């Protein structure tokens, strides 16, 4: 019994270390992408007048789907690069759930495999559920 408990804790510690690193790198990578895009954006349009942010134009501005953002990346559009960094940032905690799932599978923790799958499905509904409007 004692052995089982210590093995269980060991696996938990492993998962904690891994999740900690994954979150850290996610934030670092996304902020570097945002910084790169931002510097290009300032260099290209820094002197221009500010867009009217008091008016909400929503989806007409573009950059609202992965497809649009990737297309913009191809042309090295500065705003697309920033938005790509934003997507990486949003993906960081979502990836954390996926990695936790792997951890619980390794630990053979059925209850938490189920719980993690529920959280992951809520995320998928949010991403692909067409909740835009």
């Amino acid at each position, binding site marked *: 019994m004692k052995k089982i408990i210590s093995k269980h804790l060991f696996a938990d*510690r492993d998962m904690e270390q891994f999740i900690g690193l994954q*979150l850290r790198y996610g934030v670092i990578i996304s902020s570097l992408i*945002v910084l790169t*895009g931002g510097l290009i954006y300032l260099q290209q349009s820094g002197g221009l007048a500010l867009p009217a942010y008091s008016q909400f134009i929503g989806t007409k501005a573009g950059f609202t789907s992965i497809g649009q953002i990737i297309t913009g990346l191809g042309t090295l559009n500065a705003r697309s690069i920033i938005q790509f960094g*934003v997507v990486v940032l949003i993906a960081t905690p*979502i990836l954390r759930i996926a990695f*936790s799932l792997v951890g619980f599978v390794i630990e053979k923790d059925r209850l938490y495999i189920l719980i993690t799958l529920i*959280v992951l499905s*809520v995320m998928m509904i949010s991403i692909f*559920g067409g909740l835009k409007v």
Partner: protein
Amino acid sequence: MTILTFTLILLAGAYLAGLVGSLTGLGGGVVVIPLLTLVFHVDIRYAIGAALLASIANSSGAASAYVKEGITNIRLGMFLEIATTAGAVAGAVIAVYTPTNTIAILFGAILLFSAAMTIRKKNQEALTTGSALSLKLKLDSSYPTKEGPVSYKLKNVGAGFSIMALAGIMSGLLGIGSGALKVLAMDSTMHIPFKVSTTTSNFMIGVTAAASAVVYLQRGYMDPGIAFPVVLGVLGGAFTGSKLLTRLDPKVLKYIFCLAISFVAVEMIYNGYNHQF
């Protein structure tokens, strides 16, 4: 105003927001929204998009350290994330039918509540007897202290779960981390020691904010020109804050910030009431 001036001022403002958010434990998002709407007159929908990003950056950055130290209760976080993510998606759906002025008033109310929660007495005691449900869900755990690991148990799991769903709705509707509501659920209701409840709350904020952020991204709430200074500024401020926290006792600062935030909250409610958004 040119884009360059706007970016630089917003960068400085977001840095302060991240600093205040980290010192008070309120998170960067709650300061970003009044900063963008009241100071820069940005539409509250863009402000909500930016605040969500600030919450994710803040949460993921801080959580990476706490998780590695083993203070965060990962199982508890995952279990409660069912409630917060479902709530956040619901909140993002409700937001479409909610007038922006109502959102501003609600935001002000939550801000007042958060300020009050920050200065209240904290639960330091670890429960030695927990509920059957807590045992069944494997939520009882331990956390490291200087005197060795401390074991704790939980109760009122159902009530805590319900408050978490409400925290999720608020998060999805207003674009904030709802840290205060999360701590209320864990600290006051489930009787989890303060260190565990704050770090686990922080851990959950990223996932909760991401759940509504994907919806808002598709709706065009996230503008790259605003996201750029906000994300970098808040991250920098939160980083400085975490370094400062280990060297000074922020008790006096906390009271000052909470007072300042209360004024901002009243301003948001007043403007919302007068249909300024």
